[in-house]
């Protein structure tokens, strides 16, 4: 695996990482689509994930919990928004309470995964992860605030860099 690019965008509050895997998209897709494979990489080694439900269809959901060193469980969920096997997956990723029920007071992130074949034996995977909740994002976009934010954060960046805004 080679990390090609990491792009942090404070203006859209998003992170985009591109990486290359020496396997075709059909194979790379299954690390997302097979819950047993997903469990092996989603959580860090100290908080391994156990996938409970796994329905990768638009409107479907994935539920999981991560088990901490003290046996403490942390539940989470995905709400699948778009699927195009084996090229594209979009989902909202959020927290859940102790019973696995989505906790809508907690912020969510939107994750967009794109798999592009590089020849017959390799794949470029692009993962875009965006803060904060989809509701807040939609609100911001619909109210034309994203552009305003770019401008303001541009000023702020200039200030942080010590140059006059």
């Amino acid at each position: 695996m080679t990390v090609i690019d990491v792009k942090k965008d404070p203006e859209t509050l998003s992170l985009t990482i591109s990486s290359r895997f020496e396997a075709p998209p059909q194979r790379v897709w299954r690390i997302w689509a097979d819950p047993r494979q997903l469990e092996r990489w989603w959580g860090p080694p100290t908080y391994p994930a156990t996938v409970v439900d796994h329905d990768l269809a638009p409107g479907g959901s994935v539920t999981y919990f991560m088990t901490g060193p003290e046996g403490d469980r942390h539940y989470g969920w995905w709400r699948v928004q778009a699927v195009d096997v084996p090229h594209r997956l979009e989902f909202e990723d959020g927290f859940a309470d102790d019973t696995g029920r989505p906790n809508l007071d907690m912020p969510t992130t939107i994750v967009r995964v794109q798999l592009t074949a590089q020849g017959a034996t390799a794949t470029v995977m692009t993962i875009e992860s965006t803060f904060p909740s989809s509701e807040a994002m939609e609100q911001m976009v619909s109210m034309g605030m994203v552009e305003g934010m770019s401008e303001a954060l541009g000023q702020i960046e200039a200030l942080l860099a010590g140059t006059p805004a």
Partner: protein
Amino acid sequence: MVVDHGSVEHANRLFHALADATRREIVALTLTGEHSVSDLARRFPMSFAAVQKHVAVLEGAGLITKRRQGREQRVRGNADALREVHRLLDELAALWLGRLDRMAAVLAEPDPSDSDTADSGAADFSAADSDTADSDTTDSEPADSEPADGRERRA
């Protein structure tokens, strides 16, 4: 998902605070110099109370600090909080880079779903994909099925 709930809550407060045009302007203004709340209220077409409310949201997110000087409330922008936005994106990057490494490790092994799907001919996402031959676990209880690769569950 970011593992630390506290940092996500904090991120949410920061982003919520920055999602409003007036509040962003207040931050930009007060980063270059201290302003009183009444001075800020004169600059925006809104009531003193409305500006005070925005200032309170920014203070809650740590984006500005307030101090009292005589009868005035003085407001100053906090550059550290803005660096925090960058730090949170760094944290998110670290989380995904860790996942990418683990993905590579999974991909370095033979695909465990290959043997299971050979006789069914369909590579779907059901729990049946990873059922072992001697398992009578049903599809409705995927969490109880044994991983095909024999890895021990830690739960």
